[in-house]
């Protein structure tokens, strides 16, 4: 109570003093800094925004318009570029493949990751710390290091160049961060609700799925966004573990290949249409859920 009053008084005093000094500041440093900061902020916004917009508007142009005058706006909208990229360049197929792989692997990661995290956060048993650090230690070493052995583990299990193989690998490599994050999250939740459920006769697993998981929703959303984006954008793993037939490729492989192919075919408008098709859904989802996405991606660093 008293500390609150003191704080309020302090804040009010600060406000008064701030008002007094304000006049001295406004004309000089504040204004200059404001113009200066806006100039830099706008410059960087253009540097980020223009290349992305350029890809979008180029996807509507003809090849000769793209090459001769890259800055010009399209005269008429050549939607056939999009159709060509979607069907001939297989972008549609790659999209579907990526969707299937990421769908299964994200759900798998979330279920398995939060199960492990819950047990590690809430139950004491010999080896608890060991298992926890085994998982968390996985965040520290680079994937590139295990690339060769991983390739042979999958080949020996007949999982090379298959969807289940890719899904299992994505889940396994998403577990460290998921377990790390969700363990911390489950620790912040009250124990009493799950205990009440247990006293009422629920089993441990029922208490987990029907009580704890719904309570952990904010954490699940953050780490879920993190995993979806990370797995959607994965390039190195599919490049090595999914080198099979073209029709099995994921979007990132397809785009990189399209960029190489386009060098021989000269289908620039098709390349930009493919880029735009790959870019737009992610940007739209981000624009709608930007607060959650920003929170989800930075959550790990702020913990």
């Amino acid at each position, binding site marked *: 109570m008293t500390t609150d009053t003191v704080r309020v008084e302090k804040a009010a005093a600060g406000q008064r003093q701030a008002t007094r000094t304000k006049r001295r500041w406004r004309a000089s440093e504040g204004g200059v800094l404001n113009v200066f900061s806006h100039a830099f902020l706008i410059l960087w*916004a253009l540097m980020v925004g223009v290349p992305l917009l350029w890809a979008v508007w180029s996807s509507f142009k003809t090849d000769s318009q793209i090459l001769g005058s890259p800055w010009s706006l399209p005269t008429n909208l050549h939607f056939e570029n999009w159709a060509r990229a979607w069907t001939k360049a297989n972008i549609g197929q790659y999209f579907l493949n990526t969707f299937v792989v990421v769908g299964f692997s994200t759900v798998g990661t979330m279920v398995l990751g939060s199960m492990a995290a819950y047990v590690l956060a809430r139950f004491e048993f010999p080896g608890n710390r060991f298992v926890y650090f085994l998982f968390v230690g996985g965040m520290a*070493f680079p994937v590139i290091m295990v690339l060769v052995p991983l390739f042979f583990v999958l080949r020996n299990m007949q999982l090379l160049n298959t969807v289940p193989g890719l899904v299992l690998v994505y889940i396994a490599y998403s577990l460290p961060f998921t377990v790390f994050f969700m363990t911390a999250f489950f620790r912040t939740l009250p124990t009493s609700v799950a205990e009440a459920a247990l006293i009422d006769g629920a089993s441990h697993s029922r208490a987990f799925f029907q009580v704890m998981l719904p309570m952990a929703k904010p954490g699940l959303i953050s780490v879920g966004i993190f995993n979806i984006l990370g797995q959607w954008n994965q390039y190195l793993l599919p490049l090595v573990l999914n080198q099979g037939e073209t029709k099995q490729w994921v979007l990132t492989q397809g785009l990189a290949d399209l960029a190489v192919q386009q060098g021989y075919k000269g289908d620039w408008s098709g390349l930009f249409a493919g880029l735009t098709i790959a870019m737009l859904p992610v940007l739209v989802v981000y624009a709608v859920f930007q607060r959650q996405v920003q929170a989800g991606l930075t959550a790990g660093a702020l913990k």
Partner: protein
Amino acid sequence: MRHGKYRFIIGFLAAPLAMYAVFVISPFIQAFQISMTDWSGLTPDMNFIGLENYDKLVHNDLFWQALWHNVIILLVVPVVTLGLGLFFAFMLNVGGRRRKGAAAVTGVRGAGLYKVVYFFPQVLSITIVAVLWQQIYNPDPSDGLLNSLLGAIGLGSLQQSWLGDPNLALICIMAVMVWCSVGFYVVLFSAGMSSIPSDIYEAALLDGATRGATFFRITLPLLWDTVQTGWVYMGIICMDAFAYVQIMSVQNGGPDDATQVVPLLLWKTAFRESSQYGLAAAMGIAMLIVTMVFAVLTLRFSRRERVEF
């Protein structure tokens, strides 16, 4: 409540742990084993050759060149990215014009919008970013976005064959890495800065501190933990750099290996130009060692007294 506890624990841990053991831990251990063999994958038998692969690496100039490029990236990109991130975050949070009745330090108008735009590259895959910039860097004076811009504003003499020039290619790729990552740190540091109580700034401003002084004396020390985390994150990205170089550079690491990095060399050694799996695995172990040295150095030199606020 105790009954079935261990059955439950085992039931919940078995599947994740088994998957983790098969796909993460066992490859990790096998990496050491394979790196000491002459295995080329074609024959089932592999011969133990001790540290011969490592000896080959130490005497391989291309490997040292690639490692050197990784180190350059590791030294340059995090500093520039975190610097720009701090600069923009400070501008967003403190650069605002003073308004009547507002606090002593305010954010600029439209700070939220700036953050949304800056963050865009972060949600795109590196593949998209790399393909897009490959087109922007198009060497033709009239075809490329960057070159034709330089021509239009009268700086035609600066037109370059960006990625085709051995002296420029690595710098161009590093610029894209910075471009891609800055937004993340603007958002991260903004979140950190907005939790610093504004009366600290007010007190400093009353005592006659300039804005620059408030940044170095207040903002930076209070954000130090977040900056340190950001440094580690950037370090991991820079040790990789695979997708950027593999897609953007001419001839996978060219011209003349001017942009070669170890992960790309590893991939080519194992899966493209040859099947020297033992040698590639040894490169992986070398990367692990470099990463660990980086982590230890970071922790050793960035430790500061923690400031509570």
